[in-house]
C-alpha cells in the first residue's frame, strides 16, 4: 500500500495489483495464511488457535487456548429470550435462512448494553486505568472519573441482574490453568472493591473478567474485539432450530392488543401540500 496521506494520488497508487501480508490462495495448488501453508504448516491447528493466529499473528500456549475456548463456551446460552438469540430464532420462525438469521444475530451482538460495545469499553477501561495507576494515579479517582463520564463502567453491573453466574466457573478454570495471576485481573478485582464501597455496588460481570484475562494474555482492544465475534454463536443455532421446527410464525406471536400505543389520537389525513404548502 502507498504511504502517501490522502487524495486521488493515494487512490491511484492503490489501484491495480493488491498487496497483502495476510495471505492468498493459489487455485488448485495451495493457500498461504499469514506466511504459512494452510494445508501443511497449519493443518493440525485447532480452529480457535488458527482464529487467534489470524487475528494476532501470535501463537499461544495450550492453557491460553483452553481459556479462550472456554470464554466462548461459558457464554453460549441457548435462551431464545436473549435479544440476539431471538433474532436468529425469529428468522427461523419466519422461515428465513439460518445463515441470515445467525449473521444478523451476531451483528446485533455489537450492542451498547451487552456484547461487543461493553467488551470494548471493558478492556479499554482496564488498559487506560492500569496506565494511569502505573503512572501514580489513584484508582478510586479513575473509577469516579469513568462513572462521571459514562455513568457506568464497562465490565461491571449487568442489565438483568447484578452478579454473573459465569464468573465463578471462569475463575476456577483460570486458577486451574494458572492464568489467574495477571496484573489486569488484580486490577479488575480492585475496581470491583472500589465500586462495592460506593452507592452503585456494581459487581464485576463476565465482560470485565474476560477482558482482564485476555489483557493479561496480551490482547490489544482490537484483537480482543475481533476474538469475541463468535462469543455467543453456539447458543444461536439451537434457538434457530427450535423456532424453525415450530409451526411457522408461532415464536412470540403478538396480537394487536399486545401493542401499548402511547401516541397521538386518531386524526384525519389531509393532503399535506394543500394545507401546509
Amino acid at each position, binding site marked *: 500500500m502507498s504511504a502517501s496521506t490522502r487524495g486521488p494520488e493515494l487512490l491511484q497508487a492503490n489501484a491495480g495489483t493488491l498487496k497483502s501480508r495476510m495471505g492468498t490462495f493459489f487455485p488448485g495448488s495451495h493457500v498461504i495464511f499469514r506466511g504459512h501453508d494452510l494445508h501443511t504448516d497449519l493443518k493440525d491447528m485447532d480452529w480457535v488457535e488458527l482464529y487467534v493466529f489470524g487475528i494476532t499473528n501470535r501463537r499461544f500456549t495450550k492453557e491460553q487456548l483452553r481459556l479462550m475456548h472456554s470464554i466462548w463456551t461459558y457464554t453460549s446460552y441457548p435462551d431464545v429470550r436473549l435479544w440476539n438469540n431471538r433474532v436468529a430464532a425469529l428468522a427461523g420462525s419466519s422461515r428465513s435462512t439460518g445463515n441470515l438469521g445467525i449473521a444478523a444475530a451476531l451483528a446485533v451482538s455489537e450492542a451498547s448494553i451487552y456484547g461487543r460495545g461493553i467488551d470494548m469499553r471493558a478492556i479499554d477501561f482496564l488498559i487506560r486505568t492500569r496506565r494511569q495507576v502505573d503512572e501514580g494515579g489513584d484508582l478510586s479517582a479513575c473509577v469516579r472519573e469513568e462513572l462521571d463520564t459514562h455513568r457506568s463502567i464497562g465490565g461491571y453491573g449487568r442489565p438483568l441482574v447484578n452478579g454473573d453466574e459465569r464468573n465463578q466457573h471462569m475463575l476456577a478454570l483460570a486458577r486451574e490453568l494458572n492464568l489467574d495471576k495477571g496484573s489486569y485481573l488484580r486490577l479488575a478485582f480492585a475496581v470491583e472493591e472500589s465500586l462495592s464501597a460506593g452507592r452503585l455496588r456494581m459487581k464485576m460481570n463476565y465482560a470485565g473478567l474476560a477482558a482482564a484475562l485476555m489483557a493479561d494474555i496480551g490482547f490489544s482492544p482490537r484483537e480482543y474485539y475481533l476474538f469475541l465475534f463468535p462469543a455467543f454463536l453456539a447458543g444461536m443455532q439451537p434457538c434457530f432450530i427450535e423456532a424453525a421446527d415450530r409451526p411457522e410464525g408461532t415464536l412470540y406471536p403478538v396480537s394487536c392488543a399486545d401493542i401499548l*400505543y402511547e401516541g397521538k389520537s386518531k386524526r384525519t389525513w389531509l393532503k399535506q401540500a394543500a394545507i401546509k404548502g
Partner: protein
Amino acid sequence: MSKEKIHTRIWREEPEPDNPFAARAAYCRGYDVYGEMLGNARWVEMLYLLFQNEAPTAAQADLLEALALALANPGPRDASVHAAMCGGITGSTAASLLMAALAVGAGQLAGGREVFLAMQGWAECGDDLNSWRKRLCQLEAVPGSIWPALEHAPGFDPHGVSTATAVKQTLSCLASYRVGQYLSWLQQNLPDMEAAAACPLALSGVAAAAFSDLGFSPEQGEMLHLLLRLPGAAAHALEQRPIGYKNFPFGTLELEQPI
C-alpha cells in the same frame, strides 16, 4: 407475551373481529394508513411521519424526496454497492446483499456513522463558524468505542481535491427548499468549512445538513442515510448476477512478507 406489551408512539392496530392477530385498521401517529393515507400521502410523507410526531410540511416532504433521490444510488464505484455486487455476482440471498451494503455503508467514510457524527456537529456548532473550526480539526478517538478512530472530518471527502460538481448541485438544490438554516448556511460558508476540514465537502456532509434541517436527530439521520442508499445497491447487485463473476473484477494479489 400476554402480560408484557410493546410500547410505541408510532403505530396502533385494531384487530379484525374474528382474529386478534390480524389488523382491521392500522394508524401511524393517529392517521389511518390504509383507510386515508394510502392513495393520498406520498412515500416521503409516510417516511417522515414514522420518525417524527407530525407530518411534514410540503417543503419538508419535497426536501426529503430530493435528498432521497440524491442518495438513492451511490453508484458501482461506492464500497457499499461493491459489497452488494459481490453477493449479486455469486447468487447470494437478497437480504445478504442488502446486509453487505448496510455493513459497508455504515462506516465513517461516506457511511451512516459519518452522517451521525456530522449531524452531531450541527447539533453542537449550529451556524457558529468558530465552533466548527475547532470541531473539524479535532479527530480524537472515543475511548472504548467499537468504531475506529476518525481519519478525516466527518462530512468531508478525504480523497477530494475540490468540491465535486454533484455535491455542489445537491447542496444548491436542497438549500433552495428553504427548510431550516443549515443547508443555506453551509452553502454560504463552504470555503471556510472546507478550509477548516482540510478537504472538500462530501455528499454525506450535505445529507447531514439536510437531515438536521428536517429536524432529525443524529440517530435518525444515520438510519435514514443507511436506508435511502439501499436502492442503488439492490439494483446493481441484481444487475451483476446474469453478468456473472467471470466478468466482475477479481484482481491480482501479490504477497508481501509477513511482519
